[in-house]
Structures are given as structure tokens and as C-alpha cells.
């Protein structure tokens, strides 16, 4: 099945119906394994047991950027290729990405208090992620503000692509500026600096959260397609009512003119 085949929403709905149960099952299994490994990971020599927050914070932080990346590709699909499902994908991803970003900020804050002595610091990494969260909220507000989905899609696509500038800023903020947040320790030149006992549970949790995103995203896209079908049927209903009332008025006027003659 190619990307063009999936341009047909009915085919897409058939695909999601087949794939969603398997994806959900894989997510649950991987999350269970990841949580078990996280629970029994050793304490860090400096951070103690608080290192366990990393297994939930880092996957959410990665996904906060990954989801915006997915939305950016979908936005290109809307503006350049005009793929019928591109704006559906972008719209459906926004609330999920906002949730992951919120969790990244919250768990980071809860990790920061015992380790840094503060819940929040206006440093480059934390501030740029907060801006990402606000951009997610702005995008969701834009989708809700415009009634016509195709008009909203173009405006949202432009905003998403402009907002993508923030992704490299978030990623490299710890290298470009002097921040309280630690530099990259997994995705860096020269390999990960994490010990395997931390790296493996972290990667399992990251894959589990990515699968969770894919599952929720496909389900939310399916809902969005159904919502648009509801909208088009409601518009058909409204036009039928208007047409029949016009006919009614027309026949009344005809009768009135006959009566007058």
C-alpha cells in the first residue's frame, strides 16, 4: 500500500481498523517491559533513585520534538503535495504533542527540584521547550478558530513550518548557551555516555512512548475523518432544509399570484 492509496480516507479507516489493536497490544507490552526495567534499574552514584525520572522525562522530551517534526512533514504534505490526509494528520497530532511537551516540562521540573534545587530556571533549554508548548496550544487554538478545515489547514501548516525553527534551537540550546540543563548524553557525536543499565530501559521506554504516539495518532486521525464526515452530512442536511423551504415559499407565492388573478 503506497502513500497515494492512503489518500482515500475510506482505505485509511480500513487500515487503522486492522492495525490499531496490534499497535495497542505492542505498546502495552513494551510499556510493561520498560516500566519493569526502569523500576529495577540501579541508583545513580550522584542522583540516587531520582534517576528513575529520566525514564519518563526523556521519552516525553524526545516525543515533544518528534511530534512537531511529524506535523511539519504533514504541513509540507498540505502545502506542497496537497495530500488529503496531511492536514488530518497535522491536526490530530497537535493535542498529543502538547501532552508530551507538558509531561516533559512537568517531569523535568519534578526532577530539577531535588537535583538543581529549583523547579524552574529561565535557561535556554527550558525556555525553548516552554515556547514549543505554547506553540502547540496556539496551533490548537487556530484549528478551533477557523470553521472551514481546508482554510484552517493552510494557516496551521504555515505556522507549523515557521515553528519548526524552534526544533534545532531546543536540540542545540545546551551547546550554544551556558544552561543549567545538562548537555546531550544519548544522541551525541561519539556515542552515548549512559551506562547500559540506564540506556536499555531508556530506549525501551522511548520505543514504547513512540508506539503510544503512533497508536493515539492513528486513532485521532480516524476520529478527525469521521468528524469531517459528520460536518459534510450536516451541511447536506442544512442545504436540503434550505432547498425545501425555498420550494415551499415558491409554491406559496405561486398560489398567492393565482388567487390574485
Amino acid at each position, binding site marked *: 500500500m503506497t502513500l497515494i492509496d492512503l489518500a482515500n480516507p475510506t482505505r485509511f479507516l480500513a487500515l487503522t481498523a486492522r492495525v490499531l489493536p496490534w499497535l495497542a497490544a505492542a505498546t502495552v507490552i513494551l510499556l510493561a517491559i520498560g516500566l519493569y526495567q526502569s523500576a529495577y534499574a540501579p541508583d545513580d552514584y550522584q542522583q540516587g*533513585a531520582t534517576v528513575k525520572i529520566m525514564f519518563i522525562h526523556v521519552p516525553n522530551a524526545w516525543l515533544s520534538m518528534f511530534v512537531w517534526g511529524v506535523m511539519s512533514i504533514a504541513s509540507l504534505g498540505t502545502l506542497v503535495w496537497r495530500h488529503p490526509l496531511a492536514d488530518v494528520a497535522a491536526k490530530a497530532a497537535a493535542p498529543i504533542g502538547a501532552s508530551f511537551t507538558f509531561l516533559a516540562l512537568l*517531569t523535568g521540573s519534578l526532577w530539577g527540584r531535588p537535583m538543581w534545587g529549583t523547579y524552574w530556571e529561565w535557561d535556554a533549554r527550558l525556555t525553548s521547550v516552554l515556547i514549543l508548548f505554547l506553540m502547540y496550544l496556539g496551533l490548537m487554538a487556530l484549528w478551533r478558530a477557523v470553521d472551514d478545515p481546508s482554510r484552517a489547514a493552510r494557516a496551521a501548516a504555515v505556522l507549523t513550518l515557521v515553528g519548526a525553527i524552534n526544533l534545532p534551537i531546543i536540540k542545540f540550546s545546551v551547546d550554544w548557551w551556558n544552561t543549567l540543563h545538562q548537555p546531550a548524553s544519548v544522541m551525541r557525536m561519539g556515542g552515548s555516555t549512559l551506562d547500559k543499565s540506564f540506556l536499555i530501559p531508556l530506549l525501551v521506554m522511548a520505543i514504547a512512548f513512540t508506539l503510544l504516539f503512533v497508536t493515539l495518532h492513528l486513532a485521532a486521525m480516524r476520529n478527525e475523518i*469521521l468528524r469531517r464526515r459528520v460536518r459534510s452530512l450536516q451541511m447536506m442536511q442544512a442545504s436540503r432544509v434550505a432547498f425545501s423551504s425555498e420550494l415551499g415559499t415558491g409554491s406559496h407565492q405561486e398560489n398567492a399570484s393565482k388567487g390574485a388573478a
Partner: protein
Amino acid sequence: MSLGPYASFIVASYAAAALVIVILIGWVMLDYRSQTQRLRELEERGITRRSGRSATERR
């Protein structure tokens, strides 16, 4: 498994993540139910797609 002196921060992190994920899953499921219900109601009133196929049809 001992969580040490900062157990409340660790538990709060995992609890918050669980809560947000449950809300997300609940939102997706309720939204699906609501959309299929609205489509069924419209079809019962005789409002159907131009193709004549059911709006909830998947194949």
C-alpha cells in the same frame, strides 16, 4: 526497591504521566464514540453520503 528521600518527586512524575496518558486515551475513545453516534443519527434521518455508502463504513 527503595526510592530514597525524593520518593515523592519520583512517584509524582510517574503518576502525572499515567494521568495524562489515561486522559489522552479516554479523549480519543470518547471522541470516536461521539463521532460514530452522530453519524448514525444523521444516517437514520436519511442524510447519507453521495456514494450511498455508510459514513462509518471501513471497506
